[in-house]
């Protein structure tokens, strides 16, 4: 994404769909830099931070948090896309569906109706789609910041690049590479801990291996990730059952295709496992979930 330089402050919006608000909190975690952002950017819509609203823009840059999980959200997203020159998705929910995307496997149980009934006493009051999907499934996305949550360093890089009209420099290495750089001993080799590090993009600084635990995939699959091979390693060398293999992959970026296919092959996430005899019809339910 590149934006022509301009002397006028860029009109910036921050909006959310289904999410925890933690990624937009990244803006408020910029510290005193937050106060200086106002010099180069004009924040015209940021509901969590300001009562002065411009919900319809127009926006030079619109940051979108959260995944699309209701019809209203889908309509609203399309409207916002029309009002924004650049649309940037922030965080695992917006870029790959987030933890709530796991509902797509509800078809292995009683479908989304079973999900609603598990939480709400009066299901007819609840309007929800059978899936929670990434923004890019529905509209064109110009740039993305991954992570659950996003890394504030990457946010600063993206804001800086946008302000001066160059491409942001974001890492594309695997978490494994970050461990090597940091001198962190491999938790999978030394402790037998299942770790998604070989197939997940860096961005966190290999936080979990640094804490002596396996990566659980906050930043999503890196390019040409081979999830099937890693899953075979879990089964063969670590002795994990299919259900535990699926559990490790079914985290915060589970709906990314490279992880999704491993979860499907392993029978679905825990609590949403496919019964062997109904595998075919359950697949149909999952695929037919949403427009």
């Amino acid at each position: 994404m590149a934006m022509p330089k301009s002397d006028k402050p860029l009109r910036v919006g921050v909006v959310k769909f289904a999410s925890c608000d933690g990624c937009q909190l990244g803006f408020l975690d910029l510290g005193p830099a937050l106060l200086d952002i106002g010099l180069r950017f004009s924040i015209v819509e940021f509901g969590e931070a300001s009562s002065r609203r411009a919900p319809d823009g127009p926006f030079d840059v619109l940051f979108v948090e959260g995944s699309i999980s209701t019809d209203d959200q889908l309509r609203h997203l399309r409207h916002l896309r029309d009002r924004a020159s650049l649309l940037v998705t922030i965080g695992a929910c917006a870029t790959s569906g987030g933890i709530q995307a796991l509902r797509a496997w509800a078809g292995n149980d009683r479908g989304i109706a079973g999900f609603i009934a598990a939480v709400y006493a009066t299901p007819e009051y609840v309007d929800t789609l059978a899936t929670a999907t990434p923004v890019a499934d529905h509209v064109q996305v110009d740039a993305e910041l991954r992570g659950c949550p996003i890394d504030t360093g990457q946010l600063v890089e993206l804001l800086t690049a946008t302000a001066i009209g160059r491409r942001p420099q974001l890492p594309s290495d695997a978490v494994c590479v970050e461990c090597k750089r940091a001198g962190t001993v491999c938790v999978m080799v030394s402790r037998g801990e299942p770790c998604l590090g070989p197939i997940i993009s860096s961005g966190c600084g290999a936080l979990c291996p640094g804490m002596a635990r396996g990566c659980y995939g906050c930043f999503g699959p890196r390019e040409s990730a081979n999830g099937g091979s890693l899953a075979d390693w879990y089964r063969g060398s670590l002795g994990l059952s299919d259900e535990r293999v699926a559990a490790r992959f079914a985290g915060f970026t589970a709906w990314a295709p490279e992880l999704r296919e491993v979860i499907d092959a392993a029978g679905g996430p825990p609590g949403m496992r496919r019964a062997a005899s109904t595998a075919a019809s359950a697949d149909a339910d999952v695929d037919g979930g949403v427009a």
Partner: protein
Amino acid sequence: MSRATPHETPHETPPKVRVERTFAVDPLSRVEGEGRLRVVVRGDEVVTAELSIFEAPRFFERLVVGRHPDEVLDMVARICGICPVAYQMTAVEAFERLFQVQLDPQVRQLRRLFYWGEWLQSHALHIYLLNAPDFLGYDSALDMARDHRRIVERGLALKQAGVDLMKLIGGRAVHPVGMRVGGFYRLPSRAQTRAMLPVLDQALADAQETVRWTAAFELPDFERDPLMLSMYDREGYALDTGRLVATEGIDVDPGDWDTVFTEHHVEHSTALQATGIDGKHHLVGPSARIVLAGDALHPLAAEALESSGGVEVIRRNMFAAITARGVEMIHAIAESIAIIEAYQPPADAWQAWEPRAGVASWSSEAPRGVLFHRYEVDEQGHVTKARIVPPTSQNQLFMEDDLRGYVTGVLDLPEFEAAARLEALIRCYDPCISCATHFLRLEIERS
């Protein structure tokens, strides 16, 4: 509040004959998540006072089914980016009680330090970035910073001190990765923790200054005498130990919240509303804690409370919650300093545990108030059923009552101004709509 008052807008004359008027704020701003409020008044009679939460449901209580307790800790953090530790702490303590894990005392203290860090960052965020602009007449902290840059910087520094404590123990502040059943994945060294002391010394002075600042705010004249609920432990300020107590009658084990409260599902909200089984609802959060557990405050916090005007104004006036948060920041920092000064890392970061089937339930004090978790688990420790009740769902009916009571005092204002006053009242609860929307499992609505 220094927003426009009737004096400042003499050209607006209130209608002589009051027909039906609707005050609506849609959506609410400077709250976490998506909600709206709507108050309908006919003549002087309030017909409707509704707080609607339209945040999309995410079904966490269903998503954790089939999961191992350590996975549950990582999942429930994602309920809220502002208070992930509250979810992790409540869940981990529920599981550890069921599995009869006896924590090392130093690990216990680090848990509290972790939680105080979250309180500090959450309270600083609310006081400085969300709530104070209402009292000083700004739309946002960014606008406020143009005139009061040093004050906003003080708030950001306080928030950063909380973030630093969370990073020290959990690796990062949003969705930290350090906690596991039985302890932590890794412990910070004594040197790493002591490096926080200069930051906390400055934060303590800043928090004391915060209370002096907010105590001087002019509060709208709106008083009531609410029922309140909080954790209480005479050995230490309300956090994650002791009993669950109310201003009247209730005194139960924190795992037994659901024996005295229930939840209802109403059409206008994706958050369930909690109420006592006797039909009464209780205020939870900083004001309730100060009233019910104030005798366990650190002396420095107690002193600040006293000089700010005392507990009575906090009990009666919701707008004084900003000062309650400031007093709690002082407590959080003072106790954090004491924990760090006494900290000696134990030999093991965590201890092994054996799963057993049963019910794991506990309550703790999230920054916004009482948070209740209940998990049914099988012999492997995997969850078969879950229920999570966040503080905002407990405060929901209370907020509607307060809208009802407060609106009659702002009827003479122009519509937009009256609506802004109502929104400012709701903001004092620091509603976390992201938290409240999803998860509440519900009982049948009582008639």
